[in-house]
């Protein structure tokens, strides 16, 4: 447990140092850059609120990937599920008109349905034809990308707009802000809480974890592997879809071209960095959001382009993962040496 914190913090430090080195090479002062970066993401209530709001899609897609990877299915379809969730929520918001609270609930459910359906398609292909979900979800990402691009340029396009986008959804479906903080954060906290509870305390979650660690053992122990596979895919698909829906409802209130950006892939990255831990996913999701949010502000007062955040993130991933595995190897060796010594005595 302690090792996890040590390797995580060590990894973050080393990655920030490498980032500083890259900036130095390009002739920037890394101290100024980092100061600006964290001032615009964590320095004060308003930046903090923005960081928390931007963390929502990252944390939820990260959670989706974490739970999937920890339970066995290689669900890499978060980008596609995210887009389908966003599309479902948007279309729902365009045609369904209900009182405020009810509308929000319906749209959130629709978003989860969209993501779950798209993940369910991959699960179905796996169940019926034994097609590897790894490649299938990746290909479905591209299909979803083009499909949503068609939907917002064709049947659901805002005729008054100059670029592909839908009209705004019903105002009742907009997530309100309390002070600086948008209520989308509440949904994230609830989703993380429920996921943690299901994954760590429920029988279903126990079976998922068991299947993820040793699928043969789980099968012999009486778990229904196929049913668990499908339920994990649906659950993680719903989480990714929820991320997409919330993004629409909290932010632009419509489906714009390029809405998905890199959120879902960043989520996959966060899951990998967090080693599929749910709490760690929440923390790293927030940290990655701080870097992304801060980078946008930093660009205004320094000469460094905001794209540096993408480089920083990738360096973070590689360094944190490598330091974790390297630490494990070193500890194993030490343990082996200690045992060898004990035997010798």
């Amino acid at each position: 447990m302690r090792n996890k914190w040590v390797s995580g913090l060590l990894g973050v430090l080393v990655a920030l140092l490498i980032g500083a080195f890259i900036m130095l090479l390009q002739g920037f002062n890394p101290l100024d850059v980092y100061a600006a970066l964290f001032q615009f993401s964590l320095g004060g209530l308003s930046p903090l609120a923005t960081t928390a709001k931007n963390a929502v899609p990252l944390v939820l897609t990260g959670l989706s990937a974490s739970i999937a990877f920890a339970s066995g299915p290689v669900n890499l379809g978060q980008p596609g599920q995210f887009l389908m969730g966003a599309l479902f929520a948007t279309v729902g918001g365009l045609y369904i008109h209900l009182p405020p609270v009810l509308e929000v609930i319906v749209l959130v459910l629709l978003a989860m349905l969209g993501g779950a359906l798209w993940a369910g398609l991959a699960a179905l292909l796996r169940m019926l034809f034994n097609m590897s979900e790894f490649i299938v979800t990746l290909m479905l990402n591209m299909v979803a990308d083009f499909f949503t691009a068609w939907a917002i340029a064709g049947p659901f396009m805002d005729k008054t707009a100059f670029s592909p986008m839908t009209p705004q959804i019903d105002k009742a479906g907009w997530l309100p802000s309390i002070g600086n903080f948008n209520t989308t954060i509440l949904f994230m906290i609830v989703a993380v809480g429920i996921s943690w509870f299901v994954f760590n305390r429920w029988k279903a979650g126990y079976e998922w974890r068991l299947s993820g660690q040793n699928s043969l053992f789980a099968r012999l122990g009486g778990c229904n592997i196929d049913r668990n596979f499908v339920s994990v895919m649906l659950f993680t698909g719903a989480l990714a879809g929820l991320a997409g829906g919330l993004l629409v409802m909290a932010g632009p209130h419509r489906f714009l071209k390029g809405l998905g950006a890199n959120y879902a892939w960043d989520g996959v990255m966060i899951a990998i960095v967090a080693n599929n831990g749910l709490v760690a996913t929440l923390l790293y999701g927030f940290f990655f959001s701080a870097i992304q949010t801060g980078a946008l502000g930093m660009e205004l007062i320094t000469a460094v382009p905001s794209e540096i955040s993408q480089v920083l993130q990738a360096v973070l991933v590689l360094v944190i993962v490598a330091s974790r595995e390297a630490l494990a190897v070193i500890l194993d060796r030490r343990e082996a040496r200690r045992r060898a010594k004990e035997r010798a005595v």
Partner: protein
Amino acid sequence: MRILVGLINGMIAGATPILLAALGGAFTYYAGIFNIAMEGMMLAGAFGAVVGSYFLHSWVLGIVLSIAFALVLALIFILFSVVLHTDEFVTGIALNLFAVGATTYLMRQTFDVKGVFANAGIVPIPRLHIPLVEKIPFLGEVLSGQNLMVYIAVIAVIAVNFLIFRTRFGMRLRAAGYNAACLDSSGVSTARMRTAALLLCAVLCGLAGAFLSLGYVTLFAENMSAGRGWISLAAIILVSGNPTGIAVISLLFGFSDGLGLLLQDYRVPSQFTSMVPYVATLVALYFYSVKERKRKA
């Protein structure tokens, strides 16, 4: 006839990057590495090619730089997965994302544009006109006048086939994947074979990238590899790494690419025609799993 020639040429152009990347992946496949970094290597190569071609005014140097950029990614892969024993899947995903981030950042830094860098100063890879063959009706239009990289890809199929199945190096490479412990105990370092496989893979992925940004089109766009690395991975899995099989599968994917372009003429929305190669991959995967099931039964 015009349509057919267009379709075939579209097929060849669509197949080339997938074929080159998949041939690179074949090396790592046989060496027993779960390499999913072809996507990133291709993207890095595409960026390197544009940088070289634009600043050094030569497509040859563009290709050299594209290979160099892809090799950088391969070296990082080697450092993490071969030296530090990090999980290959994790390393591959992180590298792909690193390639997207780094090329986007560097494009912004060096060219000061967002999204797409297109400039008349980028020298494309020339097309090769073969004398005499050029004159043959119909066949001449297909066999001659293709991009130079297309011919390199054809040669690469033969070369990779020879290297993997007919040389001592190839035998050791396959042994590294088949039984690493056995290879190590016979005095050949598995780590060294895997390093070689990854470097070779990067060279071919670099060529694939160079074709994308200097042949297929003459520009660099953010994330322009657009899943082709994943399709090439699917191609490798579908034929268990066999280079000739990879060539056939790549042509099939290329055909779906060309078909997509053709369908656009019949007023099918372009978003749907763009989906065709990815759906074709799913269909191919379906036939593969049916075949696998029959084999097992």
